[in-house]
């Protein structure tokens, strides 16, 4: 059996004294889309950050293409094809859109040619004509799209999107769903998508994990998900 692109095996994660993730296991195969559904505080962001090693203290095994990265510093993991787009966007306000995009070029893996700012912006019609705008001049929606575009700049093997639709107008969410499908087809990147918006997640991915109180409570295809919908509803409702 070949190793999946990413495997999280029996991971516990902690913030100081609080135990956030409990024996979480998860796999993402190359070029596939995986949704991670769960309520606020279920542990979605903590799992995303744990995969990058950026924040929580993690106990357990994390493998990238079969090699352990559990003890690799976060900045090196970011250079190994793992690209996390955090839920709070974190656009640098003091530089232009183009410079925000250019800064991510350094995260490209060895031998991979990163996207230029113009190439990355061209993936999303909403960014057209904004390259010279400063980060602080963008609307929330524009910042979110920019954050996703920035995540794609290093041509990651796995894009980790943390609630990209949060706070966005429905029309922008629709656009983004269409763009994500196109971008994934073009780039061949796998996607791990933390979401509360089930229809958006369904549009962008092929399989589902549901997390609740730091434990994985469901894993399967969208068909399995629908078959278990009644049982899963309580893990999703707000």
């Amino acid at each position: 059996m070949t190793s999946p692109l990413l495997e999280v095996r029996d991971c516990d994660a902690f913030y100081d004294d609080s135990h956030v993730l409990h024996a979480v296991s998860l796999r993402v195969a190359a070029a596939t889309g995986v949704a991670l559904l769960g309520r606020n505080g279920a542990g979605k962001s903590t799992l995303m950050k744990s995969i990058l090693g950026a924040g929580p203290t993690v106990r357990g095994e994390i493998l990238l293409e079969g090699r352990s990265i559990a003890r690799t510093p976060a900045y090196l993991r970011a250079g190994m094809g793992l690209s996390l787009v955090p839920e709070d966007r974190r656009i640098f306000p003091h530089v232009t859109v183009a410079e925000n995009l250019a800064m991510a070029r350094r995260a490209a893996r060895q031998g991979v040619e990163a996207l230029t700012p113009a190439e990355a912006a061209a993936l999303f019609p909403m960014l057209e004509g904004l390259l010279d705008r400063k980060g602080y001049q963008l609307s929330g929606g524009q910042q979110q799209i920019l954050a996703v575009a920035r995540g794609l700049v290093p041509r990651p093997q796995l894009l980790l999107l943390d609630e990209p639709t949060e706070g966005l107008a429905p029309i922008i969410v629709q656009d983004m769903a269409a763009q994500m499908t196109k971008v994934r087809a073009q780039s061949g990147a796998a996607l791990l998508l933390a979401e509360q918006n089930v229809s958006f997640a369904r549009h962008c991915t092929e399989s589902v994990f549901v997390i609740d109180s730091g434990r994985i409570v469901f894993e399967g295809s969208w068909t399995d998900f629908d078959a278990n919908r009644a049982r899963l509803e309580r893990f999703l409702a707000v």
Partner: protein
Amino acid sequence: MVFDILAVVVNALTWAMATFLVAAGLTLMFGVLHILNFAHGGFLMLGAYVVFAVARSLGGELSFAGYLAFSVVAGLGVAVLGLVVDIVVFRRLRGVDNAYVLIATYALLLLVEGVVKHIWGAGSHLVSPPEVLIGAFFFGPIVIPYYSVFVIAAGVAVLFALEWFLHHSSPGKLVQAVAIDPWMATLLSVNVERIYSITIVIGFGLAGLAGGILAANQGLNPQLGGISIIQAFGAIIVGGMGSVRGAFLAAILLGLVDSFGTMLVPDFPGIFFYVALAAMLLVRPKGLIGAEVTR
């Protein structure tokens, strides 16, 4: 009257640029690492003593080029010390309470003072300026010391060098990014620890360089380290903690207020610096310019 005012302005600018030279590295390090390095003045003093020691061993007189060159050497030497201090002290101070930072860097200042006393003694020393910087020229009826021109030029040069580094060089842009959001910088594969080390090395280098440039401005003694940063603290507080441009503007502002104050009320020299500092803190407690190195 006009000429009196011009003379006061020249005085103010000299004071301001001397202050900015001290403040530049201090505010850069604060902006990026949020460490207020109490020992900054100590390392500045070390730079001054290095130039003094070199001048003495060469017979007491340095040419202008030699003086500049050895100021740069002092800067480089202190920059290397910065790397050592980072490894031994500062890395342990990441994310700890400010009180510990204060105590640790104050202890470092005492250590540097002790080393200076041990090597050069507790007494005072003088560094002669290079010959071309001795004396003054007339600009109309006002007298402008050559040394003032040198200090003002050095201050402006350091401002432009730092501004270019931060806004136009790629390591400088990373330093800015880390100052604003170290976590996101990490996610973009920036080695934040290395950026911290680079910043500390530059900050210490600026201290050593300033020490060299200002060495001939005043007598050297082991108390210089503590004294020299008081005014610099004023400039970085008024300028907005962590802002290089802010420190530059604040130094000029404080210099002008203090010089004109002293001209009008000659019985209280130096007091207007504190008056201006207090007034600024009442009016704009966050300083002239935001809170980052970048604005």
